[in-house]
């Protein structure tokens, strides 16, 4: 039986904040331009180097380093669109990136799963990607889906199997962060074509987008760049993310890390605009901090969660939308730490005007899937969404007549106004579940049960049979080519 996918509930802030001053944004942008012009970026792709060279980049083909004069950078970036739409299977679930709303995705791409039945920790597999696509299809907090874990049971073509599992289990937009290299990208684009039906729809309402990581300090990944170029050619949005690590692959100061990471991202966005002017791109600044004693990448130290809203302001300075870092806890289990680390960073990303963010649902710094974590994160998301939404001060909301009628002492229980409005007050589905014998149930346990309920009951509209067959055919030929 097919069930309806609940409407999206993006965060629409009623008010905004600006963290960096104009002069600070100028300083940061100038520093990025200086790095691009004087230090350059390592770019191990002949194809990319040629594009740079043809468009005014100063290319050292032996060292594979490109240096970009400021004017070249600014000219290329002037073609990047500030606003665009990311499509979904059903247009009602399209993501309108117009600066008014923040849409969030799940996290990705974890490598281990707490098994849905046995609760044992094990390597992730394709079925997990599909199951979680279905769970998140049901959640109004999730605007688009990142394949949340790796389809490790298909080692050679995992990224394509992740897309297959996603497209078959959610009607929402899908963003991959694992499709790397021209070979894989061609198959992925073919799959997007099947979902869209034709090229025009694919370009207007792209159902698939791609996120590519740069390599800190100041280097690009060949496969990443080359798949991004193909996506951009096909009109599918591509974003670049820097995960520079303060103290090891970036300077040990926040401002230094920001500009180094920004230079990596901007160099890639410039390449895309040189090759395909006007291609939809996004900017994603997600540095971490190296733990001085363990060397670990930490995304949520007391100070580092400021990186993400700052990244939003920097992206907007360049005139492109952002994918902000939200959630992504360093905690080892869903609990106090995962909530503590997430909340104010998400709020700040919303208030600085981030358009998209990832991701909900993983712990251990984006590595481990606890199925219930996405429900807990969604609850936090809704707290922030409500908090950012502003207050209704209409006459009905102020209810002066009711206050006058009740007067001093007395109560409001019998008032018609109370009956109508009390139902609209939102108590958490997780924390507000009464327990037999009084009190409330443990929200983590409620979340686990809710995941089970969704898996048993939510079956989003499937792809048409012809589309399913076509995607299976594409997968089969990819598997065959890789002898999997």
């Amino acid at each position: 039986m097919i069930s309806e996918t609940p409407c999206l509930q993006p965060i629409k802030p009623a008010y905004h904040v600006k963290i960096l001053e104009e002069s600070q944004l100028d300083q940061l942008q100038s520093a990025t331009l200086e790095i691009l012009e004087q230090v350059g970026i390592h770019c191990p792709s002949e194809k990319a180097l040629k594009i740079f060279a043809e468009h005014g980049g100063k290319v050292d083909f032996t060292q594979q380093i490109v240096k970009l004069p400021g004017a070249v950078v600014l000219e290329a970036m002037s073609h990047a669109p500030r606003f665009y739409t990311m499509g979904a299977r059903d247009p009602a679930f399209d993501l309108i990136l117009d600066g008014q709303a923040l849409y969030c995705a799940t996290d990705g791409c974890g490598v281990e799963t707490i098994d849905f039945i046995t609760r044992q920790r094990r390597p992730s597999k394709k079925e997990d990607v599909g199951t979680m696509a279905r769970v998140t299809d049901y959640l109004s907090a999730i605007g688009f889906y990142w394949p949340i874990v790796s389809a490790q049971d298909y080692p050679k073509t995992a990224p394509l199997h992740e897309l297959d599992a996603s497209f078959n289990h959610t009607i929402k937009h899908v963003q991959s962060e694992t499709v790397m290299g021209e070979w894989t990208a061609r198959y992925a684009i073919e799959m997007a074509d099947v979902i869209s039906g034709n090229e025009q729809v694919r370009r207007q309402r792209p159902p698939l987008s791609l996120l590519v990581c740069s390599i800190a300090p100041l280097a690009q990944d060949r496969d990443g760049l080359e798949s991004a170029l193909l996506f951009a050619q096909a009109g599918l949005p591509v974003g670049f993310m820097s995960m520079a690590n303060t103290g090891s692959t970036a300077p040990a100061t926040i401002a230094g890390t920001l500009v180094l990471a920004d230079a990596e991202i901007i160099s890639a966005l410039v390449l895309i605009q040189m090759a395909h002017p006007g291609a939809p791109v996004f900017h994603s600044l997600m540095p971490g901090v190296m733990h001085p004693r363990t060397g670990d990448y930490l995304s949520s130290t007391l100070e580092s969660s400021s990186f993400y809203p700052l990244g939003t302001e920097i992206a907007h300075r360049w005139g492109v939308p952002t994918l902000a870092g939200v959630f992504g806890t360093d905690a080892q289990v869903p609990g106090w730490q995962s909530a503590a680390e997430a909340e104010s960073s998400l709020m700040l990303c919303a208030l600085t005007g981030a358009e998209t963010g990832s991701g909900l649902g993983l712990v251990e710094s984006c590595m481990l899937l606890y199925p219930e974590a996405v429900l807990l994160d969604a609850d936090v998301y809704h707290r922030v969404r409500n908090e950012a939404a502003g207050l209704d001060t209409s006459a009905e909301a102020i209810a002066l007549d009711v206050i006058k009628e009740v007067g001093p002492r007395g109560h409001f229980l019998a008032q018609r106004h109370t009956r109508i409005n009390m139902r609209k007050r939102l108590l958490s589905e997780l924390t507000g579940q009464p327990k037999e014998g009084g009190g409330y149930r443990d929200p983590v346990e409620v979340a686990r049960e809710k995941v089970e309920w969704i898996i048993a009951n939510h079956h989003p509209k499937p792809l048409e049979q012809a589309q399913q067959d076509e995607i299976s055919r594409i997968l089969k030929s990819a598997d065959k080519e890789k002898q999997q």
Partner: protein
Amino acid sequence: MQTQLLPLEPLKTTYHLQFLTDRQLDVLQNATLEILENTGVKFPSQKALTIFAEHGAEVDWKSQIVRMKSDFVLKALSSNPRYFLLGARNPAYDLQLMDGVTYFTTDGCGVETIDFETRQRRPSRKDDVGKMARISDYLPSISFIWPMVSAQDHGETAPLHEIDAAWNNSIKHVQSETVMGEAPCRYAVEMAEVIAGSREVMRRRPPFSLVVCTIAPLVQDTAGIEGALVLAEAGLPVGFLAMPTLGTTAPATLAGALAMGDAEIISAAVLMQLHAPGAPVFHSLMQAWADPRTGGYVSYSLDSRTRYAPVEMAHHWGMASLGACYGTDAHEPGTWQSAGEVALDPYLASLAGSDIVTGMGLSETYTLLYPEQIIMDDDLYQRARYQLMQLEVNDETLALDTVHAVGPGGHYLGQRHTREHFRESMVRGITHQIGEDGKYREPRQVAIDKVKWILENHHPDPLEPEKQSELQRILAAADKEIRRG
């Protein structure tokens, strides 16, 4: 042995959030004025009614309801200071209220404690108040002290014993939320005078302040309001706290609950100004929800958007605001809920410009003390503090020379710049403490150990012996008079 004095770390922010538009603030203020003029507020106190009548308010002596016109309200409030000072035993810890700075305190007044040694749940007592005051004294996030739990081993004079325990274990400002009634308040003022050293210093640098709850809908508490008059007379700051519950004691819409709660607060503030013009009075409104299925009191609904709107309403009246943070409905610290509900609080309270804020450290909707919870709440506070700090952007922090030196590829580990800044680059909270096995320790266990460490090692400057004896004498007299009565 005394320990080192750590400077306070209030929240400071260079950018602000205006949560309500000016028009919305006007709409809310007009609603409050209309309630005060047409519906009125019940003051079950002859003394209060007499003051109102003498100043021209419309008093119905039979129903004890006071109605007041807008001009009357605005004129009375015009003498209320927007900024004032909360004094401490040590002047270095005085809190000067000002824009852009937010001072936090603990929660109060819980009634049960998870015992420091046995970890068993039991009724709270005076010794707990002292211990938690000592822990709060140590934490730079805590700028002033609320007695966290009730000194239930001291019966009717518990409130006075709570402030005795607070002053004997902390050099910071003490604010009570339990001293009620004329007689107890007179004793509290006497104690404050002992701490200050003189009436004059007490007025200038009041070491004590009081929060009084109103009763929704639109009623004042006799003992609360009469006690507050005593403090206002003595120049000690008093605040009024409305706790409207949507759907039971307040309309089921947020704006309605805010306007009604505001009317309760403003009517009390007007009374204070009529009686003691210029008295420092602050504003506090904490809305809650009635669970439609259980009737239970819920401090955090999923939609808690108005939590900091009252801060702006207070400022619109020209009053300082006591904001409401923390106060989770969770049963235990360290749980997802205990952070999920409150993690946004300190950050938003500061962005909204709260002057003072309560309250860290209790579970089960302000009733249960787990000693380690204050450390976990402190960690959330520090997250907010760093997020609100201005980013340093200059040649040294941009580190372009270092970026040049490393170039594409390679790493920053060998750089002088890295060595110089590395230690400050990662601010370690309780979540990133490494255990003997090389893994991160469980944050709650880190918090439990920190409580133990503070209690063993932090001993704030004690009160001078003569002041201790004087407080003892006042307490003995109060015990004799009030308990007998």
